């Protein structure tokens, strides 16, 4: 065909780090601390719920309600009403999506037009930028910056400058995206930080898109705060959640967007004109999972209580190992990931195929190919314009079986010993 075929909306968003790095990890059969998924199973009560669902009569295998399976939206409304402190309407205020990813997509497609500005905080989960671009929006970036350099680095040390934040809001600002707990840093925004953002949202009448997929994973007593629960914020916030991260079942791809019906209705319009329905049986299983967690919430039995305790130890263990081999980890307050400063290592990266790439990309590829350990370069979580300024960190996922973490440790120690 002689004519240009593709639509302009997909120009410049065709590259994707995950496609490249997951392929590389697979090709080299690397110990995978790269992509963010658990290598252990979902909790048994949720697996059982799934099996029960798929044996539960013909309706479990046919279309359910397009905006979300009734059992699921009802329990999500009940569960989160208790947390947010307001009556959430299951039919009006919730949209179930194919993972949190699709909830983000619906949000940007529904609310962002050409000329709209969207504030994004770097480092960010990489899909925000291309999604805003695909919706025709303009990105306004600001950084989380390291405020001090003590002996133990924590994600809490990365903060927003109030002046810089305020300066990003303009009459064209349509939305700000926040992600707490943050991927890749693991920062958990404190109430005061969220209040600062909220004040600006209210002042400038801006929508807040709050990606909270790791909401149950906070460590060291850190509390996750929902910006939608701050005064004046419910009516302007879309909160995004994930069953995949909640129940360690990323492959089920069940997520949701929650917020005031007058905004959610627009997400529903996108949803009904793009995928229309989500898979029924998985939604039923997630609903059963949430009902169980509702009943045991706050007790020792709760998975939301047990999983962070379980991961707390893995996080410390990985941090100790990284320190012992000369990497400088940033201890995350929440989430699945830990980043580490690699600038102390003096590795000879002579692979000509990666010559023009940022240092961390080259290091990660070297680590996969030469040592069989997969991680992700943190500059991938910065905009292309700023990538070159942040080349010295790599990201590890610690939500892995102890055997996987042990294997990673062995590789690192062997390498360190051989130096």
């Amino acid at each position, binding site marked *: *065909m002689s004519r240009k*075929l*593709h*639509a*302009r909306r*997909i120009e410049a*968003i*065709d590259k*994707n780090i*995950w*496609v490249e790095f997951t392929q590389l990890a697979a090709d080299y059969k690397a110990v995978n601390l790269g992509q963010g*998924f*658990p*290598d252990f*199973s*979902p909790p048994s009560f949720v*697996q059982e719920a*799934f*099996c029960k669902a*798929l*044996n539960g009569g*013909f309706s*479990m*295998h*046919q*279309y359910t*309600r*397009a905006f979300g399976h009734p059992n699921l939206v009802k329990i999500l409304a009940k569960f989160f009403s208790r947390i947010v402190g307001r009556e959430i309407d299951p039919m009006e205020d919730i949209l179930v999506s*194919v*993972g949190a*990813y*699709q909830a983000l997509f619906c949000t940007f*497609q*529904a*609310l962002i*037009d050409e000329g709209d500005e969207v504030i994004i905080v770097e480092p960010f989960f990489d*899909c925000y930028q291309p*999604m805003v671009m695909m*919706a025709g929006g303009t990105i306004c970036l600001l950084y989380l910056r390291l405020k001090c350099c003590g002996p133990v680095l924590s994600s809490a040390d990365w903060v927003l400058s109030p002046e810089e934040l305020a300066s990003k809001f303009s*009459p064209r600002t*349509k939305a700000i995206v926040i992600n707490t707990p943050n991927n890749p840093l693991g920062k958990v925004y404190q109430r005061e930080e969220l209040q600062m953002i909220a004040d600006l949202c209210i002042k400038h009448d801006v*929508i807040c898109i709050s990606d909270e997929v790791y909401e149950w994973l906070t460590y060291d007593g850190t509390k996750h705060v929902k910006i939608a629960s701050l005064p004046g914020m419910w009516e*302007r916030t879309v909160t995004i959640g994930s069953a995949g991260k909640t129940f360690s*079942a*990323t*492959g*089920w791809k069940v997520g949701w967007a929650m917020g005031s019906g007058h*905004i959610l209705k*627009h997400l529903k319009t996108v949803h*009904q*004109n*793009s*995928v*229309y*329905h*989500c*898979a*029924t*049986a*998985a939604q039923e299983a997630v609903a059963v999972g949430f009902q169980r967690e509702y009943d045991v919430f706050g007790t020792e039995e709760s998975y939301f209580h047990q999983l962070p305790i379980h991961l707390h130890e893995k996080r410390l263990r990985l941090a100790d190992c990284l320190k012992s081999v000369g990497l400088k980890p940033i201890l995350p307050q929440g989430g699945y990931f830990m980043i580490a400063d690699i600038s102390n290592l003096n590795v000879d990266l002579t692979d000509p195929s990666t010559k023009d790439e940022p240092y961390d990309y080259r290091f990660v590829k070297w680590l996969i190919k030469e040592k069989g350990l997969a991680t992700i370069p943190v500059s991938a979580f910065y905009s292309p314009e700023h990538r070159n300024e942040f080349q010295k960190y790599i990201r590890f996922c610690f939500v892995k079986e102890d055997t996987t973490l042990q294997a990673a440790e062995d590789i690192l120690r062997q390498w360190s010993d051989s130096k």
Partner: protein
Amino acid sequence: TELFNRDKMASIKHKNAKRIEGLDKNVWVAFTSVAADPSIVNLGQGYPDIPPPSYVKEGLAQAAMVDRLNQYTRGFGHPTLVKALSKVYGKVYDRQLDPFKEILITVGGYGSLFSTMQALVEEGDEVIIIEPFFDCYVPMVKMAGGKPVLIPLRLVGYVSSADWVLDQKELASKFNSKTKAIIINTPNNPIGKIFSRSELQAIADLCIKHDTLCFSDEVYEWLVYKGHEHVKIATLPGMWDRTITIGSAGKTFSVTGWKLGWSIGPDHLIKHLQTVMQNSLYTCPTPLQEAVGQGLLREFELMGKPDCYFTSLALELEGKRDRMAAMLRQTGMTPVVPEGGYFMIVDVTALNQDLSHMGDDEPYDYKFVKWMIKEKVFCFVILGINNKTKHSKMHRIFEKYIRLCFIKQESTLDAAEAILKSWNKG
């Protein structure tokens, strides 16, 4: 002034993006509660109330037990599934299909349509759509900024779906330099028409002449009744390079609630759909893809044999089709016997149903559907209310038809029959 500006901003800021303006109405949303009412015989929405094959359910149960299969898989399609599709369709297309470059897994056939439109249609593009059509085509073209150009199928007889045909001159007149693509759906929803090889050739000739793309929605491809053949337009000369063909696991294995589908085409087109996929939902559920892949591998071994599900389902449905046609004839109505698919449309004029009490402002078919619901049978219209244009003559004809879904258990068909029989007595 600042106060005034803030109020102005408040109303602007929370407004929807232009791309979805006017696309919020959905004909189904109005009828969802009806569909859920157990006292109503549901022949309206297009999903089976017969169970899926047991090995497909078992495949899912097995997949769910494997740790790795509960986590993310390859974004563009789980390897087991894309490889199985490349095997099955390699045989059907009689060509080598690259599972990684020429196949994309999506959330249902619906998701494939969306990825296709978002990837390949934009402002300034015209897309030809044949009426009556599955209702999402027009809003999806509009959301992508394109302009739908409609052409109706016209009646040349009253017996079967083959009697609904395109006027060739009219079809040719719809193509111009702005035409980006034509959407075809074969077997067609709602009529059940299967476009013949010569009909597809006429469309192909125009696509080639005007250098346009073809989006071929073939979700009902296996549901083909005796004496008819499903032809893939992508297999006609010159068409592979310009066609995206859409398929559905939901329709193939009677599992609409699994929401898995696929787009098959040349890599220079599929790569654009993949870009949309990686920026919209990234990956589809893993255990479901594994189970569909396993199911397809099983069917591949049985292809052409009577116990292949593709064959056995079509045979089972043909019986239901014939039963439904007979039921409708008994009431005096004239069903249009479909060559394929699981819908049947029927002209209700003969019933002479007085619907004046149902209000003035709605089209006849909507009033008829609502009347039928009162009679405890849910059927559907053949053309969505938002999709009407100024083809008033054809639309007045379309309004006399309703659509019934016959992929239903015998007990459901029994219940429908009892209600229809009771009309004869009245």
